[in-house]
C-alpha cells in the first residue's frame, strides 16, 4: 500500500482486472486498451462538482509533462458519457472521460475505488504497459484533491 492510500484500492503489483468502460463516442474501453501504454485512471465522484473542476484543470495544465513521461490520463466516474462530455467541454480540458455508468460503479468497485454513497471515490491508479498496476492512491475523502505531484511520484 502506498502512502495516503486506504484499504481497498487495488494494490501495486496486481494485474488490472477485466473491465469495460464507455468512451464518449459510445465505444468500449477495456483492459486491452491498457496494453502498450502507461495509463493513469483518475477516479472522481461527479461531473460538474467544483472540486473535480480544479483537479482536471490542473492536470490539463500539466498534460505535456505527463505525455513526456509516457503517461495517458483518463477520467473515470459513474456519470453517463453525455454528462462527462459536457463536463469536459465546460472545463475546456482534453483529458478523455470514461463512463462507469452501467452497471453502475462496477469498474470502480473492481479497482477498489467505489464510495458507499453511490459514486466513484477520488482515487488514482497507474497501470503499466503490461496491464499491471504500478501505483495507486485513494484520497482520504471525496473532498480531498490529489495533487499532480502524487501522480508524478507514482510515475517515478
Amino acid at each position, binding site marked *: 500500500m502506498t502512502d495516503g492510500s486506504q484499504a481497498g484500492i487495488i494494490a501495486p503489483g496486481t494485474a488490472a482486472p477485466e473491465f469495460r468502460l464507455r468512451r464518449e463516442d459510445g465505444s468500449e474501453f477495456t483492459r486491452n486498451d491498457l496494453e502498450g501504454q502507461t495509463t493513469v485512471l483518475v477516479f472522481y465522484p461527479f461531473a460538474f462538482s467544483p472540486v473535480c473542476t*480544479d483537479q482536471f484543470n490542473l492536470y490539463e*495544465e*500539466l498534460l505535456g509533462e505527463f505525455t513526456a513521461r509516457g503517461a495517458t490520463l483518463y477520467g473515470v466516474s459513474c456519470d453517463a458519457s453525455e454528462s462527462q462530455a459536457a463536463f469536459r467541454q465546460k472545463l*475546456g*480540458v482534453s483529458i478523455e472521460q470514461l463512463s462507469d455508468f452501467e452497471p453502475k460503479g462496477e469498474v470502480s468497485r473492481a479497482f477498489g475505488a467505489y464510495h458507499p454513497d453511490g459514486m466513484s471515490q477520488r482515487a488514482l491508479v497507474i497501470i503499466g504497459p503490461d496491464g499491471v498496476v504500478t501505483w495507486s492512491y485513494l484520497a482520504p475523502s471525496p473532498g480531498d*484533491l*490529489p495533487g499532480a*505531484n*502524487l501522480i*508524478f511520484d507514482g510515475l517515478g
Partner: protein
Amino acid sequence: MGELGSAPVPALSARDHVRGPDQAPLMIQYGDFECPFCAVLHTRLAGRPLRCVFRHFPVRSSHPRAWAAACAAEAAALQDRFWAMHDALYADQARLEDPHLWLRAEQVGLDLERFEADRRSDAVVARVRHDFQSGVRAGVVTTPTVFAGGRCYRGVLDDATLDSLSRGG
C-alpha cells in the same frame, strides 16, 4: 518543467515577492490574477498585519488570461513595480486583455517598451513557471492556496482565520 514530484513548499527566498512588516506572521499564497476567489482574499488581506508572499499558480483552462497577467506582473517586477501591478490587476479582473495590461503599465509608471519586451521574455516565463512548479510539488491544486502557521489552507480564508493568522496562531 523539470522535477514535479512531491516536495515541501519552498521557504521564503530572495526571489520571492514579499510585503508586510518583517516581524509579522508569514503567509505564502499561490494565486492567479484571473481567479475571483484570489480577488476576494486580496480584499480581505488589505491592511492586515501579515507578511505576504505571492507566488504564481496560473491554470490556463480555468483562466485563459492568467498566464499573461502573471507575466505582466513579473515584467513589472523587473522595474520594481510588482505589487503595484499585482494590486492593479486584482482591482479589475474584467479587464485583463493586452490593452488593459498596457494601460496598467502606464498607470504604475512602467517604461512601456521594456515592459512589452520583458513580459514575453523567456526569463519572465521561466520565473512564473518556477512558482507554478513549486506549487505543484507542494500539492497545490486550487487557488488560492495559502501556507501559513505550518498549515495549508485551500480556498478563500475567512476573516476569523485571517485574524488568527495575523496574531501568529
